[in-house]
């Protein structure tokens, strides 16, 4: 392919990815059954955790972050982005079962663009979630010492977390094509969440969970958010969070593209 043709192809695929991302964002925000788990449920859990378990910050080993809500909001963002990723998988399975996916496959576009469009749309949802949840935390008394830079870094990590979760959701949806199976994966979101230090510092997890949290990449992302929000390397490494986030995105999106290829080859 000549460099001009390559440039033109990349521009076309860019337009395709943007259009599919816009569709993902617009349709998900119109879907009431999406808004509940992705936006309301994390906020409810934030309110419950922040008020019901705030005494935890008195425990020895709990880091000093001012308000407890400031500490747990990273977990809330993580929860929201994981659920957004699951919803992305549900949307893909719905497209497959409803036949809309065939419309995408019959268009002259790269198969990877279909996956990347959905992932980008979910990343944008992750950004909206992070902004909303951080604003609510601020209203509830959180004080982020990392300032605007810390907030921006956290939003970027949220986008990475949502992208990785969307890649995973897309992989499962493309492998199975089953809407009902995707809908039954909700509990696994909480397994991923509670095997990372989402609501408690790693030092306060029981030994089994602490061991699992070491291999759960979400641990590093959520700790990276805390490190950014409180400008504290002791709470988590921001760059470690980015490394884990980018690595997870590459891994899950590659798996999704591979699942897509397997699906269209059959």
């Amino acid at each position, binding site marked *: 392919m000549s460099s001009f043709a390559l440039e033109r192809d990349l521009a076309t695929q860019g*337009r395709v990815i943007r259009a599919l991302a816009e569709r993902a964002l617009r349709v998900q925000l119109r*879907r009431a059954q999406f808004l509940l788990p992705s936006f309301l449920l994390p906020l409810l859990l934030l309110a419950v955790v922040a008020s019901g378990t705030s005494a935890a910050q008195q425990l020895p080993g709990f880091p000093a972050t001012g308000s407890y809500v400031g500490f747990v909001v990273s977990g809330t963002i993580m929860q929201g982005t994981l659920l957004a990723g699951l919803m992305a998988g549900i949307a893909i399975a719905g497209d497959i079962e409803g036949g809309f996916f*065939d*419309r*995408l496959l019959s*268009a*002259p*576009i790269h198969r990877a663009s279909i996956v990347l469009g959905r992932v980008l749309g979910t990343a944008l949802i992750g950004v909206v979630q992070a902004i909303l949840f951080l604003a609510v935390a601020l209203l509830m008394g959180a004080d982020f010492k990392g300032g605007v830079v810390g907030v921006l870094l956290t939003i970027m990590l949220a986008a990475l977390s949502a992208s990785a979760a969307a890649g995973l959701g897309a992989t499962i949806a493309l492998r199975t094509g089953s809407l009902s199976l995707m809908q039954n994966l909700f509990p696994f979101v909480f397994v991923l969440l509670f095997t990372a230090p989402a609501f408690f510092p790693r030092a306060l997890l029981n030994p089994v969970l602490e061991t699992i949290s070491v291999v759960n990449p979400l641990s590093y992302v959520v700790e990276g958010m805390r490190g950014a929000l409180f400008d504290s390397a002791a709470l988590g490494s921001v760059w470690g969070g980015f490394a884990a986030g980018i690595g997870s995105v590459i891994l899950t999106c590659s798996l999704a593209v591979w699942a897509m290829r397997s699906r269209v080859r059959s």
Partner: protein
Amino acid sequence: MDSDNRAEADDGFTIVVEGLERIYPGGLRAVDGVDLAVSAGEIYGFLGPNGAGKSTTVRILTTLLRPTGGHARIAGYDVVKQASQVRRSIGVALQEAALDPLMTGRELLQLQGALHGIRRAEAKQRAEELLERVDLVAAADRLLNTYSGGMRRRLDLAMALVHRPSVLFLDEPTTGLDPVSRSSLWTELRKLNDEGTTIFLTTQYLEEAEQLADRVGIIDHGKLVAEGTPQELGRLVGEPGLYVKLIDESQSDSARELLSVHGAVSDRTAGGLTIRTALGARAIAPIVRTLDEAQIEVDAVEVEEPTLDDVFLAVTGHRAEEVDGEETP
């Protein structure tokens, strides 16, 4: 080589299918050695009951499914080796108008434009043209879950036309539509064909194939069992029929005996008889005279043109609606 030159390379045929096969895991032979060729500007009706292999054939021709044997070329491009070029040449409206219910008609048309690499401003303009064409301007900004079946089908057709394809594949485009919506879609398809679009249409409605298609292929159990113009296929049935309805149904036994001298007589529901005779309409007068002499009163006599249903029966040994089953596993 451009599309026209490629079509010439296929002797002027836009769709060329040779020995096409699709065997599903488990051994189901959904398409079993189909050969066909469709000329540029033709409407080809692909007729068969559920489970006959129509949709599987269309999915292969539209690059959604790989054949397990044989070859197919669309606008000169191989559906397996040059799938991307095939996708640029074709418009596709698959069964049941798969449209996202949470998008508006305008959004879907613009998305379809983007999927075909059309720039945003041009896609918007094209969407407006197509909304006008399929009479959906007033509903353009409504979510799809408020559209009727006919409106969804019209939008589906418009989406297939966004990139001005030279070949259009329509998989049972009027299934489930009321007669008015069906007729309006037929009008639009004729208009498209007049503009030069080649149309490959699957249907289980015999009337639809008769109304629209220049040529019809009949598929049964994955095999193409007959092909030709509706008139050519009609001749496969044999002699034309005359339907005679009697005022007094109790006289039908006597009538059958008397009319057997004019041709083969068979019973029909609704108290009538059908006489197959090479004379066709010219046999009406002698038949009425024979019955009149025997004082058997005739309510009506109609010439029965052979339908594709009759053709289907003649070539497969069963009626179209008698086959059922899942086409895809």
